[in-house]
């Protein structure tokens, strides 16, 4: 029996189509994946992310513990700032990809839905091994998570919010009342657009969702399903755990060097990753695109001439650039080719190797 989030009634009322997403009954679309993707690029959208996992780390040794399990530089991260990285196993392969938010009294960690339970157990185990005086709790079920993404985001949220949002920078966060409710609000997201992610007690999820919808209605705000969310993040060059990066694909192969600090001492998995990195990664992640037609999908094989050199990790039809797009992982030797063939249902189609990301929003 699939689990439902606190916002399920709102999705049903909006006539969402649901899909099973790792054991969660989630809206995959409301009006259509392409239309919803365009809505976020042109105006703004609201996302139910209550299925995602969240940890809170507290106690005197909380920062030492986070530094120990988190792959990216953390010591120099300022309070009120967020950073992307990985929980690595001893072999330097990711158990999960995470966003770490350094708060004054605690550290918030946003993990994937698939990391619920598993990540908590891992961090607790490492805390015991380290002898850290820190408590790690999973708050996924007591805390709602909603994302507001797109250029109208600040205008939608500001009237409901007690903080001056213009003071919250990209990858910054603060705690402020939203709809009168103490909320952690972060200028982060997974779409390549400006926007916010809100964390607050789950009992108020419906009320806050509806208040955001009301505030955004005249600006064209719409609810957005997981289908468009996947396309938006792919267009913006953002990885999905389990596809671009996984227990078999390390962050350097995936081209996610910015989520790893190889100079860190005493962080789980960094030494193994650094040793492997010395010769350069054996595989490389690339972006491909082609004029319309078939849609490249995860698992499709990639060829250079007659040789199979890799696999599609994510793919889709991009409404923003009007082309079929894919992220692929290929042997290092194939990474210089200007064009690769992707086999789609038994037929090979050439795709151009193109710069990443596929889409970058124009900055003011």
């Amino acid at each position, binding site marked *: 029996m699939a689990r439902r989030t606190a916002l399920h009634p709102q999705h049903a009322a909006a006539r969402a*189509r649901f899909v099973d997403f790792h054991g969660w009954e989630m809206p*995959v*679309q409301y009006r*259509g*994946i*392409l*239309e919803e993707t365009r809505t976020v690029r042109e105006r703004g959208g609201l996302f139910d992310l209550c299925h995602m996992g969240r940890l809170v780390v507290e106690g005197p040794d909380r920062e030492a513990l986070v530094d120990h399990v988190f792959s990216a530089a953390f010591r120099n991260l300022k309070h009120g700032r967020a950073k992307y990285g990985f929980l690595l196993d001893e072999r330097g392969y990711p158990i999960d990809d995470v966003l770490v938010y350094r708060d004054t009294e605690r550290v918030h960690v946003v993990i994937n839905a698939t990391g619920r339970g598993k990540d908590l157990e891992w961090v607790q185990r490492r805390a015991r091994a380290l002898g850290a005086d820190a408590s790690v709790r999973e708050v996924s079920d007591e805390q709602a998570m909603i994302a507001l993404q797109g250029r109208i985001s600040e205008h939608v949220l500001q009237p409901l919010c007690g903080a001056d949002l213009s003071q919250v920078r990209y990858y910054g966060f603060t705690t402020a009342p939203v709809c009168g409710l103490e909320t952690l609000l972060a200028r982060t997201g997974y779409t390549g657009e400006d926007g916010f992610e809100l964390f607050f007690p789950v009992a108020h999820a419906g009320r806050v969702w509806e208040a955001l919808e009301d505030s955004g209605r005249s600006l064209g705000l719409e609810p957005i399903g997981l*289908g468009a969310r996947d*396309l938006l993040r792919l267009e913006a060059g953002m990885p999905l755990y389990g596809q671009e990066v996984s227990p078999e694909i390390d962050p350097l192969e995936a081209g996610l060097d910015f989520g790893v600090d190889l100079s860190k001492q005493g962080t789980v998995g960094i030494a193994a990753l650094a040793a492997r990195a010395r010769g350069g990664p054996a595989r490389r992640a690339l972006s491909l695109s082609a004029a*319309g*037609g*078939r*849609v490249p*999908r995860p698992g499709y094989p990639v060829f250079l001439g007659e040789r199979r050199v890799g696999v599609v990790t994510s793919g*889709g*039809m991009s409404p923003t650039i009007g082309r079929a797009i894919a992220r692929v992982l290929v042997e290092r030797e194939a990474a210089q080719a200007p064009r690769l063939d992707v086999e789609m*249902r038994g037929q090979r189609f050439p795709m151009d190797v193109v710069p990443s990301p596929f889409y970058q929003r124009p900055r003011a």
Partner: protein
Amino acid sequence: MPDRPDDRKYTKTHEWVLIDGGTATVGLTDFAVEHLGDLVFVQLPEVGREVSPGESVCEVESVKAVGDVYSPVAGEVVEVNEALSSDQSPLAQDPFGAGWLFKVRLGGDGATSTLLDAAGYAAALATEGQG
């Protein structure tokens, strides 16, 4: 529940087939098209191909998924809806009319897939909890 034309038959795999003399026109139902969502590509069969009932002869691809279309009848493909190669919107907007996929000249021993009438198809969808 949508009104589906009762001049034709349906399959549990969501094709419709309209038999007129010795020729069968085949398409996808509104349910299948709605379920696929945004359509981006149609791979039509080659004219002249011999097909048998239940054989996958055509693919309809959406943003979300690829759907196989199975021939409900035996015979030779004599015409395909070439317009869908460049524009899939007739299939999305008029699946029982302008969105037809291919025509088969009936042959073989006249074998077909299990065919349902419109009410039978609606009942099958309801049984699957999809109607």
